[in-house]
């Protein structure tokens, strides 16, 4: 399917930013800077009010984005407004996907109505996402067991559904995910929530080993911060690196310090470049550079 192509030639660099952080315009510039810096896929966060899987850095980004007025509809506009030539993945929580189809509730205001359970499920959201050019989804609170309806809608509109494999994922659960995953698999480098850390976890190698017979690219995320990290991870066998908090930190600092959009964009672009180059170096160090 579509997203796999991004991993075809060399290890992929997959950055994350929350769309609309700290505001719509700047965020467009920042995402474009990532593309400029060498991103192979971009994970764009659509902020949800209860981001249970995120660490403090990304939580704060989500708050900034929500406060600047981000909504699912604005998000779709945002994607349309983006001037990048990189595949885009929407990272969000299931309730937003699920509610989008609930037209009755969408129109209602004032007293909530009480019996507006969504009849359509995730399909309308996926349809709209496809329309604006989104190529896949990462939904951290949607386990394989509950993913049926979303998987179906993705199939209908030709989108990928990325799953996250945790260090604790084993046995039956791995099987179930392998059956449903497409695009790439998000290998969570360590337990916990998102957030940049300082070293690479042993759990990463073990996870990669467990996934060795999967036929989708393996992108490792959680805690990757520098080019060296990216290098190590790829050297350990990853097909790509996913980097979120380290980039969001740049946005946050720029926002706090009142730096110009260009200055922040430059910093993002240069970290992106470092990370991408690290990943590429890592690939060269691999014992057997066999790529799926």
């Amino acid at each position, binding site marked *: 399917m579509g997203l796999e192509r991004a991993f075809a030639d060399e290890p992929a660099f997959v950055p994350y930013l929350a769309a609309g952080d700290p505001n719509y315009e700047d965020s467009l510039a920042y995402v474009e800077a990532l593309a400029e810096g060498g991103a192979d896929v971009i994970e764009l966060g659509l902020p*949800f*009010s209860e981001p249970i899987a995120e660490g403090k850095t990304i939580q704060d980004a989500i708050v900034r984005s929500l406060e600047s007025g981000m909504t699912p509809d604005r998000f779709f506009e945002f994607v349309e407004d983006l001037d990048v030539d990189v595949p885009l993945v929407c990272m969000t929580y299931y309730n937003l996907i699920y*509610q989008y189809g609930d037209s009755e509730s969408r129109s209602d205001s004032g007293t909530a109505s*009480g019996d507006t359970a969504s009849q359509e499920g995730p399909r309308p959201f996926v349809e709209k996402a496809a329309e604006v050019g989104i190529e896949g989804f990462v939904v951290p609170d949607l386990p394989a067991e509950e993913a049926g309806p979303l998987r179906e809608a993705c199939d209908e509109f030709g989108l990928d559904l990325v799953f996250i494999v945790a260090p604790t*994922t084993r046995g039956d659960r791995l099987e179930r995910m392998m059956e449903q995953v497409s695009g790439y698999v998000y290998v969570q480098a360590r337990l916990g*929530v998102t957030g940049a850390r300082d070293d690479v976890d042993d759990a990463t190698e073990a996870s990669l080993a467990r996934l060795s017979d999967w036929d989708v690219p393996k992108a490792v995320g959680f805690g990757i911060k520098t080019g060296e990290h990216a290098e190590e991870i790829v050297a350990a066998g990853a097909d790509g690196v996913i980097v979120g908090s380290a980039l969001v930190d740049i946005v946050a600092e720029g926002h706090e310090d009142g730096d110009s959009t260009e200055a922040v964009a430059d910093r993002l672009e240069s970290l992106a470049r470092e990370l991408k180059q690290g990943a590429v170096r890592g690939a060269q160090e691999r014992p057997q550079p066999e790529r799926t």
Partner: protein
Amino acid sequence: MSTDDAHDPKFGEYGGQYVPEALMPAIEELADAYGRYVLENEDGFMDEFRERLADFGGRPTPLQYAEQLSARYDTDVYLKREDLLHGGAHKLNNALGQVLLAKYMGKERIIAETGAGQHGTATAMAAAHLDMPCEIYMGETDIARQRPNVFRMRINGAEVNPVTVGRGTLKEAISETMRDWATTVENTHYVIGSIVGPHPFPKMVRDFQAVISEEAREQAIEKTGGLPDSVVACAGGGSNTMGAFAEFVSDDGAERSSAKNPSGDEPRGRVDLVAVEAGGSSLTVDEEKGVAPNSATLSTGDEGVLHGARTKLLQDSDGQIMESHSVSAGLDYAGVGPELAHLVDEGRVTPVNVDDDAALEAFHRLSQDEGVIPALETAHAFGYLEENHDELGDTVVVNVSGRGDKDLETVIEETSKRDLDIAPDMSILNRVGGGGI
């Protein structure tokens, strides 16, 4: 309940396990432990649990005939006195069950979220009792407005971790505790405080709380010779609610049961189950600000996914969760247990709501008329009784989910903002001087 429950995460459409992948093994392990220890009493878990509930918790709690209210409403009103449980609320039933289960599972650390502080207090007590280290996440706003409970947790030796994200209330504290759990899942058990969250929590918490209705059903038969016509309980997440309903759910005959059966037969008939939510200051929501000035999730909410489960929610049209509001911190939650959502859809449970004013009045009424100071959460159930006793039949059981000591400051403040005839004059405290409560 059956052992299939351990592996069926759903209540009709509701429930499920919408959690980050990192937590899935933990909740699968938990579901397995739930099946073995709770449902099958492996290693005598349930026996030990029940014994500790009796000796440490003070069970059984009485089913008390409320003389003044019965006269007032010309209806036999019985109070199920969970306020007498150790810690002052039904919360200990669940906290003790889960901490004990964590021990059976070999976990070494307990975490929990708390809103009003009642669940945190209960968990801290249970953890101290069972010698387990314990950390409680609590929103900053709630810490400031529920200080006595913060003291109690600290005094029981628990760490209290302030949650500064968002509005700093229960919703944020749950999210934060899930984050901790995602990092520490291998040695840590997350004691969730109501029948919410991913499977197996809603079923397991219900089963730990079901002791309320097991006792109440037997006590009602013993005292009245039959089943009550209605059981009324307040509902936030819904743990006291399902605890009070569980054993009555199958009493779903066509006719009310108060026609007492004089023989020794097992009583039959229909027991109406009424879940009273917080109507707050109004049922009208402010979509713009994302604020619902109530937490009437069952009566006004939409289906959605929050904190690991599909259930009814207070959310805006995009699916963003709203800020709920209630004078009672313990009902101030935008979600509700998936089982209650299901039973409401099935028509087995009637969702109603009572606003802040009526709850405050009911607080004063029960205190003055019966000498029982209820939690503000509980007061909602009595507010409904005042307004709708005619519809509840001849015999009503009201679950007194907790005592109101924790609420004194709020009650005085909220009462002073209103013109409630029933409220006592509190000026003695100004006359004599001194600090806060």
